[in-house]
């Protein structure tokens, strides 16, 4: 009687084959598994749709709140009450101040 690794391998192969041959699939296995993966796929899609709807609803709410806050404020684009006058003052009329302005040569202007 051999008890070496080769004998054990052969015995193991034979035992595993015998055990495996005793396992049979249920007749309705395919219908059950197909129903399961279809149910999960439906659940995934519904979850994705709900998440997208929630995202858009959240974005809409945020936008509406922002618009609602800015409605009562004073508009700054077309409601400027005082025109800006940041330019330098215009040159005085020649006739009015020429006599008092100093000249580079220190004399009286002509």
């Amino acid at each position: 009687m051999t008890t070496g690794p080769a004998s054990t391998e052969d015995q193991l192969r034979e035992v595993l084959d015998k055990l495996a041959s005793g396992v049979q699939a249920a007749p309705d296995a395919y219908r059950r598994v197909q129903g399961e993966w279809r149910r999960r796929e439906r659940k995934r899609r519904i979850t994705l749709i709900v998440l997208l709807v929630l995202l858009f609803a959240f974005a809409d709410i945020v936008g509406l709140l922002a618009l609602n806050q800015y409605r009562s404020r004073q508009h700054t684009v077309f409601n400027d009450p005082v025109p800006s006058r940041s330019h330098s003052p215009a040159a005085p009329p020649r006739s009015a101040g020429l006599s008092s302005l100093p000249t580079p040569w220190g004399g009286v202007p002509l």
Partner: protein
Amino acid sequence: MTGIRPNPPLQTLVDSVEASSQAAEEPPAPVPPGADREAALTRLFERHYTGLLRLAVLLGADDGEDIVAEAFCQLHRRWNRLHTVDAALPYLRSVVCNLARMRLRHLQVIRRHPVWSADLERSAESVALLHDDQQALIDALRQLSARQREALVLRYWLGLRESEIAAAMSISCGAVKAHTSRGMAALTKIMQERR
């Protein structure tokens, strides 16, 4: 372990011959998109469901049908990530191995002692042709770790190559060799002590 590949079961031989002939004649088929996914999954189910169920039971899972169903559901969900249709079966094998191992760990934590599949017990009883040596071999197989049992079942029942076993168990080829040789050494030792 030797590099000689053991004789695989008939169904595995047919599958491997078909796969090798397809690989030799034409490039790997791309993954059918969308609507063809159901048809491809149906073909996979018809061809490999029973084999995967037997694999789960031989790995010691007590709910082999649930494990294989979960594997097909995960394949359905991740179908678009497959590179080719030929990658589906190794993926299913890998998921079944992982789920069976997780199930065994879960049951061991719950019951605080190693468990063995009730389906396997029923299977062994239904066969009712096991000799004393074979029954002792089953008992010895129960005493191995989950990894060693996986490596032995994938090698001696499915007849997979080391690279295929490594892919199914998500480990390296060296680890496959180590698990296989240690598991077989443990089985041989138990059987020799029994005699």
